[in-house]
């Protein structure tokens, strides 16, 4: 125990003495947290539309007015040539072309049906899909409106379904409170995993690890000495990040914070053990860095932080059973936003616990005092 205290003292002195390290650990992540949560939105505000109205009729003008009135669309320009309109799409200057062909109104009156053409820039399939849904909605509303007018003249009524939405846990659809825990998890993990991994290999490369290896120090003492400092710093960072989230973004904290931190402690232990293991199998900082980079980015992009897990293929969902971030992000959102209790996250808790124990043992086993 005394030996461990001496080691911890040393690690902390080294961390706090490094003048660049501290701002990078504390300030850069928080700035990113505050700024980047705003970025993670799929909310479509300004779908820019180029209109090709070849009909120039009363109905076509009303239809365009309907688009103008929608909060999602912004009429960017009018033109009479479809190919000119397509150039807007090609140059990334518009997202959608609304083409009302000549004779639209006449056909609608005579045949009861008429076509409009919508061209979407579908390079981003998701936003194109969403724009499509919105545009179809606008058209359907308009359709219903003119139908009601016409049937109303004849004195009848048409069937209508009133759809009412309600968004639970987040009635304003505030994407920030969803993203903030996600980005926070990334930052905290970065500190835990990367710094731990690099720290050990750095000592190998500088030669100080050898001096330590020739002392009667125990493996577990050494590992604890390497784990605890960044473990504390990462937990502190998490605490700080949640505080900032509460103050600036009114992040809900419905569930128990104690449970959250209990889970976070376990999670950090796991990712730090992974970091230690990777550093134990590497000889140089370059190697460990690429290994960590590989696992870290893969974990981050697969965890469902930015894109929904449900959209992923089945094999990816299976791979996610070994992705620590996937567990933590899920549990963190459940506790914070929905107030889930221990009974809701029992499975995640034990899985992570066993996983952490295994990785810790593996890291300790793989760490060699003698070659």
């Amino acid at each position: 125990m005394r030996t461990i205290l001496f080691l911890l003292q040393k690690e902390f002195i080294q961390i706090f003495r490094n003048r660049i390290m501290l701002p990078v650990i504390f300030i850069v992540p928080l700035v990113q947290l505050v700024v980047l949560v705003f970025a993670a939105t799929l909310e479509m505000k300004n779908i820019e539309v180029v209109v090709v109205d070849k009909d120039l009729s009363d109905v076509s003008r009303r239809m365009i007015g309907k688009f103008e009135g929608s909060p999602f669309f912004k009429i960017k320009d009018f033109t009479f040539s479809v190919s000119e309109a397509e150039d807007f799409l090609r140059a990334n200057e518009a997202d959608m072309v609304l083409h009302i062909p000549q004779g639209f109104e006449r056909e609608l009156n005579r045949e009861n049906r008429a076509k409009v053409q919508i061209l979407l820039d579908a390079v981003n399939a998701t936003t194109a899909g969403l724009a499509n849904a919105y545009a179809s909605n606008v058209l359907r509303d308009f359709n219903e409106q003119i139908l009601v007018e016409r049937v109303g003249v004849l004195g009848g009524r048409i069937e209508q379904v009133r759809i009412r939405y309600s968004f639970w846990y987040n009635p304003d659809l505030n994407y920030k409170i969803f993203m903030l825990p996600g980005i926070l998890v990334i930052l905290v993990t970065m500190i835990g995993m990367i710094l731990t991994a690099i720290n050990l290999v750095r000592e190998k490369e500088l030669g100080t690890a050898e001096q330590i290896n020739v002392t009667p120090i125990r493996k577990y003492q050494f590992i604890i000495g390497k784990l605890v400092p960044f473990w504390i710093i990462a937990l502190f960072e998490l605490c700080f990040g949640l505080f900032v989230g509460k103050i600036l973004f009114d992040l809900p904290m419905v569930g128990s914070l104690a449970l959250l931190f209990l889970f976070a402690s376990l999670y950090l232990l796991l990712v730090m053990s992974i970091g230690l293991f990777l550093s134990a199998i590497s000889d140089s900082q370059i190697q460990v860095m690429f290994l960590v980079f590989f696992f870290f980015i893969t974990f981050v992009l697969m965890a469902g932080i930015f894109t929904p897990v449900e959209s992923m293929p089945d094999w990816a969902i299976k791979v996610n059973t070994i992705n620590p971030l996937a567990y933590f992000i899920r549990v963190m959102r459940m506790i914070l936003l929905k107030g889930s209790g221990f009974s809701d996250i029992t499975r995640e808790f034990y899985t992570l616990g066993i996983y952490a124990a295994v990785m810790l043992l593996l890291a300790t086993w793989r760490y060699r005092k003698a070659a």
Partner: protein
Amino acid sequence: MKRFTGFVIKEFNHILRDFRTLLILFAMPAIQILVFGFVVTNELKDIRIAVLDQSGDRYTRDITNKIMSSGYFIFDGYLESTRQIEQKFREGNVKQVIIFEPGFGHKLIREKSADIQLLADASDANTANLVVSYTSAIIQDYMMDLRKKTGGNLQILPEIRMMYNENMAGAYMFVPGVMALILMIVSALMTSISITREKEMGTMETLLVSPLNPLQIVLGKVTPYVALSFINAVTIVALGYFVFGLPVHGSLGLLLLECLLFISVALSLGIFISTMVDTQQMAMFLSMMILMLPTILLSGFIFPVENMPDILQWLSCLVPAKYFIIIVKSIMLKGTGIAFVWKETLVLVFMMLFFIGSSIRRFKIRLE
């Protein structure tokens, strides 16, 4: 020049000798593009929906069937009462609950009006928004069909064309993004680390007293990485083409040139980082910290920049990956030439010159 070539060859050998790093360097981008190309997507798929059907008539069943057969959703089961909703959401699997009011079909036919409630788990606001939009679109479609049968007939038929991506493949969006992310981080990390390594090991001083001037030393260290990164870029484009079916409508030559330009920007950024820090640890941490999240979030990789608040739209102008992604999409998917992307290209060139210029200045200050 001959001395310089010798130095570059030495650096090459140095990198090639470390087999493990080399393996990671080449295998990693390939694996990542394969994984992310399939995984990173916003498309709705297999969203679990529970239904509370208090009416249980022909119409509610038809609507339920129509929703579930759309391909976006999975039927999780019927709920017995409103009390179960909370529990379902808390467990976290069900994302939406559809509630039909009692006597739905009866009301719809007699009173011409009936209620459907959509409850979405909006802790993920983005997904909730998609889910609700898609569900109501399906319900509205059903109503159109229904009216056609009952006589109220007046239809505006939207004819939708998905330009440049008829099958709505998510990969079209994400492959260019992953490409930018990997090239950016791998290139910047490699240079910043390899230069700080020399500093940390004290070998930088040895190099500085050699007859090579500082610019040559830095260029010598970077040149091999330009080659390595370029191979990575080609691998990624090839995988995009063969695995994800991303077309190259525009000029392949131009595309590769732009890749080379982007790599150079990333490498010069790496050099710039290495002039700010003294240890590999800090170089790596700084590269990851300041590059990873902005490159993912502010480049239009996952979230379209146009939807962001103004401040972030301005900030995104500082992210090199943003321009690269625009360029790649324009050339590959829209088949446009330099006439459409010269602005973005110019910005990248300017960024590269800026990083190299600042690095040289900082380098000189340190030497004096």
